[in-house]
């Protein structure tokens, strides 16, 4: 696998870097060399202690040119309609096997750019040179691999004092008759006091194993606001590895929801760098695991400036055969006085064969801070269950209600009713009940 992937880069380097400056090409090369020297992470790496990449890497993936035009595969709006939040008026950017599909998308350059990275290489080389791979230099092999092979993804650049009027829906579809590994690269650059909202979903339509390796870089200037909902509800053969890095300046705000309810293997890395005073970050996560699922969340909040606050709340519900990993790290530099950092990770284990591994970490070098974390692993409260049963609610519904209530924290702050309703429906479906009750 390593050699094939290396070859994929060196064979196509010319196409990948056709429109890029030397600096960008060097970044890609360096990333590829880093990947080649380290190889894929194994369970001997502390960061991958509980998650083995072996099942993700074992299929014989088709590794075509990352930037060649699409082959004969075709996709109609009807095929993807159910994966979108249709009631929502949104900019839509749809990718098929890592390539942009213009006929399904609705992009814009009016006042701000919501388009694709594949077009930006040529159109905006200065912006690319300024931002591309600037946050990912010190990341692990998977992110390096992505930097080297990145071709497409969303490209969102918002000028100062502009609010993007509609949310952006990003949908990345994998299909085909052979196993596929794709790279998705998203770049978001927000000017002073600008705002944007992104709803992201990855979906496999294939009956073959698929692997999506995605990296996001987001730069928030002073006062900028970013909301990002990551919906991971993929099929039982789909694997996803993702690294998101958000760099925040003074008084900016970010809010990231990670809802992981499907897929065989999910590994999320979410890093937030609070680089200016008064920046705020909220990270909310919900995991529903069942069957042979593995969901691994690694988060990092890097407090580099004073008066920043971070709030993190990850919930997990693990049923039969599933495995969950949570590794949350809060790092407070000496300069970051008056930091307020909070981290909570709560897990429900529903079945004997489920497994949870948690490691909430605090590393603190400043003294005038308030940092706390909490982590629990347990079961549903028997008393609460009894209370509902005594009121005539059948056990499956009663359990589902309690679990929904447990999960609610992770959905808090999603303002769009239609998106909220869709998420609730997904969750109820996953929990195996029809909650038409108006909760």
């Amino acid at each position, binding site marked *: 696998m390593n050699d094939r992937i290396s070859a994929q880069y060196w064979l196509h380097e010319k196409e990948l870097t056709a429109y890029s400056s030397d600096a960008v090409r060097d970044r890609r090369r360096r990333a590829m060399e880093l990947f080649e020297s380290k190889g894929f992470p194994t369970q001997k790496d502390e960061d991958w202690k509980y998650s083995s990449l072996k099942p993700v890497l074992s299929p014989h993936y088709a590794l075509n040119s990352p930037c060649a035009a699409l082959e004969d595969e075709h996709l109609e709006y009807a095929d993807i309609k159910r994966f979108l939040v249709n009631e929502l008026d949104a900019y839509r950017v749809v990718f098929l096997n890592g390539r942009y599909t213009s006929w399904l998308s609705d992009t814009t350059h009016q006042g701000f750019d919501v388009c694709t990275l594949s077009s930006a290489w040529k159109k905006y080389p200065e912006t690319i040179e300024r931002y591309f791979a600037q946050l990912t230099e010190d990341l692990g092999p998977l992110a390096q691999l992505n930097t080297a092979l990145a071709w497409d993804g969303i490209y969102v650049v918002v000028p100062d004092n502009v609010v993007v009027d509609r949310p952006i829906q990003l949908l990345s579809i994998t299909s085909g008759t052979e196993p596929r590994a794709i790279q998705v690269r998203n770049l978001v650059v927000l000017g002073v006091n600008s705002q944007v909202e992104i709803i992201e979903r990855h979906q496999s339509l294939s009956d073959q194993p698929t692997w999506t390796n995605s990296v996001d870089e987001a730069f928030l200037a002073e006062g900028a606001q970013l909301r990002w909902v990551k919906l991971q509800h993929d099929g039982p053969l789909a694997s996803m590895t993702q690294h998101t890095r958000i760099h925040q300046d003074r008084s900016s705000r970010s809010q990231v929801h990670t809802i992981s309810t499907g897929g065989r293997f999910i590994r999320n890395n979410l890093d937030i760098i609070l680089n200016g005073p008064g920046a705020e970050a909220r990270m909310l996560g919900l995991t529903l695991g069942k069957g042979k699922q593995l969901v691994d969340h690694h988060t990092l909040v890097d407090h580099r400036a004073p008066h920043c606050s971070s709030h993190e709340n990850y919930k997990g519900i693990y049923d039969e055969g599933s495995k969950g990993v949570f590794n949350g790290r809060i790092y407070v530099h000496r300069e970051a006085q008056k930091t307020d950092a909070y981290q909570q990770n709560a897990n429900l284990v529903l079945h004997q064969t489920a497994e949870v591994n948690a*490691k909430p970490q605090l590393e603190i070098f400043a003294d005038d801070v308030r940092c706390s974390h909490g982590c*629990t692993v347990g079961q549903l409260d028997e008393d609460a269950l009894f209370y509902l049963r005594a009121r005539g609610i059948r056990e499956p519904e009663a359990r589902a209600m309690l679990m929904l209530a447990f999960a609610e924290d992770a959905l808090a702050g999603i303002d769009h009713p239609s998106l909220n309703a869709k998420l609730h429906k997904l969750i109820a479906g996953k929990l195996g009940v029809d909650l038409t009750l108006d909760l």
Partner: protein
Amino acid sequence: MSQDELLQEVTATDYKYGFYSDIETDRMDAGLSEDVIRRISAKKMEPQWMTEWRLEAYRIWLEMDEPDWANVNYQKVDFQAISYYAAPVKKQISSLDEVDPELLKTFEKLGISLNEQKRLSGVAMDIIVDSVSVATTFKKTLAEKGVIFCSMSEAIQDHPELVKKYLGTVIPRTDNYYAALNSAVFTDGSFCYIPKGVRCPMELSTYFRINEANTGQFERTLLVADEGSFVSYLEGCTAPQRDENQLHAAVVELVALDHAEIKYSTVQNWYPGDAEGKGGVYNFVTKRGICEAYAKISWTQVETGSAVTWKYPSCILKGDYSIGEFYSVALTNHHQQADTGTKMIHLGRNTKSTIISKGISAGQSHNSYRGLVRMGPRAENARNFSQCDSLLMGDRCGAHTFPYIEVKNSTARTEHEATTSKIGEDQIFYCQQRGLNMEAAIALIINGYAKEVLNQLPMEFAVEAQKLLAISLEGSVG
């Protein structure tokens, strides 16, 4: 007094146990080889099986790499520059009168007068200097109850069947680098056996002291509590002030059989190095206990000394309904580094564990909590509660928390919470407003902060621990 002056004053507080006693010592040249181990074994007149056991450990050690995952930085130890055997001469004493008067003076300076111990305090002691046991008090009283409390070398001679049965069962030689080294070269330590159903009539205590320069202290403690017995065990340690780093790599094994209870308390006050971080003891200790059904092991530790601490007293909750507890106060000042915590391995059903860890960092020190709570697939209804608080004093120190939680059972519950903060200005203000000066206020707040742990200590130790905290911390508010 300004805060800087206060800090200054703390920095200036001397390590009062830093003297060196000129005792005639029988020591081996520095270096480590199979030959050295054979000589240690021969000097202690050990049986063949013990020598073999040591040599095997040495071979295992040679294959291992020094661990580097802990959150500490230090100059690596040169294992060939250490003398592995140093013993005060004039052994074979039958009563305290025959003990080297220099040694007695040493203990008086330390505040442990053996004579007084005998009469008053009702604490039986085993005293170990440079890893050789020099005196054990109260042997007779204990013998009446059937309690065996003696040095490890005596135990190997007199109770080989017990030693053979339990030595290395909780911490095998292959466990880790320092445990393997200790298994190969340990020179002495305490051995204790409490027979079935006996409640040990007094607290047992060991005092460790490194005296000689360039020696490593490698003691080995083995404590076996047979069915239904109870014992409370105390451990204290000091070392002279020296510029070079001394190595202390001990192994403590506890075995609590069905319904037994062991309470193990430590006040660790090895020389922490001077204000510039020069010298001090490297404290690389492996401590672990195994609980059979309904047994309980409780670790309480107050860690104020050592330049580098690497220590994780752990409990293997093997039997159903067994209980593990860990209470810790770890205080680091100047350039000290501590990476400490516990492991609670839940194997049996209905097992319970509690972890309370309080870290205090001042000066330029680093204090890490590293812990593991593992619920095995068989651990039905297992329960854990962990709380790790850190207090930072000054902006040049660091406090870190690395808890690992692994749950493989759907009926197990774990809770973990951790906070990091500093002493509230409002708290100090409140105390000062009521007429306490700054130092008294801080001492009060710190003692309150560590109260949950200090309360677990036996009376005499609690007093000593409180004083220690006060000495190390007074006024060092940031």
